[in-house]
């Protein structure tokens, strides 16, 4: 179905199911119970997970397949946001043209930046993309202030032209919508003390995320995807076969830039505001972290990584010392204080510390990301515990089994 083989179709259907039921799945705890703060089923968080999922999937097309580590992808996210907000200001509050423009503009930027940066590889490529992103960031703050509104960030205003929309009545700003359906409208469903929030914004993001994910699957399975993998494994060999890797990598760069632009456009569609800090290099680092944490080069990994990071970010930032004290009140007083102190360093304000530590642990011990970790666990269940040696690696390309020694050799 959809031009996929059976296994991929099942996979895609599972992903679609999981995405559409996210508002229920991320709300497993009853309202008012002690665990209610772990519920992630509110629209703001779910939208972010979907949007950053798209961003990470796009980044993975470049990094996971071709191995080119871009440290400046957030620039495209920011460019996407700016173009979408301009579309809201000038044309209409309907999000479709805004998102399309975001993809086109960021695609153009990606083509220009990619054309220059892809002339080098390895660490030089990372530094070049980083330099371009920092340049965009600094320019958004200084020279381009008429376009970006500098430090304040680009916002909607009452006197924007909005050619296609009717004139606004009253003095409130219009909201982003899709053919009249407002993005921030929600429907609350209460079942057995559980409150499920279904919002238009989330479902809009979810549908686009599924489409983006589908495109990514097709890309991974296509001959084009095979070429990108060839770029990663050995460019010289590719050259000898008579293939030029440049157009392929540039195409991958542009595609992943457009994914980033799409994510930026969606961010603006959810909240019509664009600021330059979206382009800061730490934001570029964040998408790298998401991709690696989930598992670079896998389909599901980046989405998983984006989900885990955004969920933990929201939940961990909410936990403060009072909450911790209520958790550990059963411990003896002295120990309680110590435990609370330790945990408090990693939660609330200290969320970044958790992020850094997790990141180091994952890169050191699980270079394949969470997907690899899940794979290990599955193997453990399937095959039971068995002694592993280094020839057990299920990767015959890079770790061929040793040839049998023949007597008399």
């Amino acid at each position, binding site marked *: 179905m959809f031009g996929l083989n059976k296994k991929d179709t099942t996979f895609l259907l599972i992903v679609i199911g999981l995405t559409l039921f996210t508002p229920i799945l991320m709300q497993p705890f009853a309202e008012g119970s002690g665990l209610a703060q772990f519920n992630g089923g509110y629209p703001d968080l779910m939208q972010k997970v979907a949007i950053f999922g798209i961003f990470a999937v796009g980044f993975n097309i470049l990094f996971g397949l071709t*191995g080119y*580590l871009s*440290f400046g992808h957030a620039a495209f996210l920011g460019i996407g946001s700016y173009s979408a907000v301009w579309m809201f200001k000038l044309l209409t509050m309907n999000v479709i043209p805004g998102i399309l423009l975001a993809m086109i503009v960021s695609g153009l930027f990606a083509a220009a930046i990619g054309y*220059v940066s892809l*002339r*080098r*590889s*390895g*660490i*030089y490529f*990372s*530094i*070049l993309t*980083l*330099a*371009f992103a*920092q*340049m965009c960031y*600094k*320019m958004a*703050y*200084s*020279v*381009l202030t008429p376009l970006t509104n500098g430090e304040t960030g680009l916002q909607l205003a009452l006197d924007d032209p909005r050619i296609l929309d009717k004139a606004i009545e009253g003095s409130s700003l219009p909201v982003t919508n899709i053919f009249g359906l407002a993005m921030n409208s929600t429907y609350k469903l209460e079942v057995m003390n559980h409150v499920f929030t279904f919002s238009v914004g989330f479902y809009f993001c979810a549908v686009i995320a599924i489409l983006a994910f589908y495109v990514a699957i097709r890309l991974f399975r296509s001959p084009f995807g095979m070429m990108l993998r060839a770029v990663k494994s050995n460019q010289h060999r590719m050259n000898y076969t008579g293939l030029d890797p440049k157009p392929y990598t540039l195409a991958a760069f542009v595609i992943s830039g457009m994914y980033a632009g799409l994510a930026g456009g969606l961010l603006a569609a959810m909240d019509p505001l664009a600021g330059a800090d979206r382009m800061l*290099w*730490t934001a570029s*680092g964040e998408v*790298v*972290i998401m991709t*690696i944490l989930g598992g670079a080069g896998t389909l599901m990994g980046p989405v998983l990584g984006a989900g885990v990071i955004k969920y933990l970010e929201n939940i961990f930032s909410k936990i403060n010392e009072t909450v911790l004290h209520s958790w550990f009140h059963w411990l003896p007083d002295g120990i309680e204080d110590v435990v609370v102190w330790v945990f408090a*360093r990693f939660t609330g304000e*200290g969320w*970044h*510390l958790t*992020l*850094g*530590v997790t*990141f*180091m642990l994952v*890169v*050191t011990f699980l*270079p394949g990301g969470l997907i690899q970790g899940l794979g290990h666990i599955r193997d453990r269940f399937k095959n039971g515990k068995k002694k592993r040696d280094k020839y057990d690696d299920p990767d015959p390309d890079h770790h061929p089994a040793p040839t049998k020694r023949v007597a008399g050799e």
Partner: protein
Amino acid sequence: METILLQLLNGLDKGSAYALIALGLTLIFGTLGVVNFAHGAIFMIGAFCAVTLSRIFSISFETVDPTKLDFLGNPAKIKTPYVEAWFGADAGAWMIDWAVPLAILFSIPIMIAVGWAMERGLIKHFYKRPHADQILVTFGLAIVLQEIIKYFYGANPISTPAPDAFRGSFDFGAALGFDPNVIIYPYWRLIYFGFAAVVIGAVFSFLRFTTFGMVVRAGMADRETVGLLGINIDRKFTIMFGLAAAVAGMAGVMYAPILSPNYHMGMDFLVLSFVVVVVGGMGSLPGAVAAGFLLGILESFSSMNEIKSIIPGIDQIIIYVVAIIILLTRPRGLMGKKGVMED
């Protein structure tokens, strides 16, 4: 002429900081082949060494002086720093005043220990891994170090003044025969430049004129052969990592009076220092130093009003523009060697 000279001087102190950090990065890269994204954090830790020492020196105890009254009519409490009580009032006051330069001595063992711990504890395991993994793990480490410092010192910049003796400015214009008050340059920045020159000179002569340096240079050229000759090159390289950390740390200590230390200053400098390293040529020490000064000076020239009126905003992006142009025209950087980081 005056303005050109002034901008040249302005570029020197920033250029010195870039050059020192880039020198450390290049040392690590040249010896261990590791791309260290945590180097900016080391610079930041150095700056906080200065903050720590000046805080330690000003720890004081209170005594009640019954002869004097404060504004409420109670006997006045007088705070006396411990250093003044132990070493006498004059020596104590001098130590508090000179906390920043003294922090250099204080920082060297700390930075070498930090560098050693980083190399043995973490980076050692990443020699055989791809450069992307090295970048990522050191990036994670940088976040962790930054958050630790933020926890202990808070998020606000902490101003750390230079000693009183260097607080004024030097009137270059008068000394060189121009009009007075045209080219004024703070003493501390002058000292920073001199300090950077001394450190850079020391590192170069250490590598050039000592047996240890000779072995390290040989190891940079061909690690395996040096190992085959029976020299424990790993141990030497670990020491070089500590040395590189000490260089970055000292650069941070001395920079504290120029820019009040805050927890993200390392990241700000790191991006620029990487650009500097790449412009100078990966693995080339003279290249790193030259590119550091070059970019620092270019940055200050482009912030002149005359130039800004021609190309607005150029001062913000000049470094990146130069980096892009150089990487595209001279792919190996200004002084890069063939075969380093080319895949």
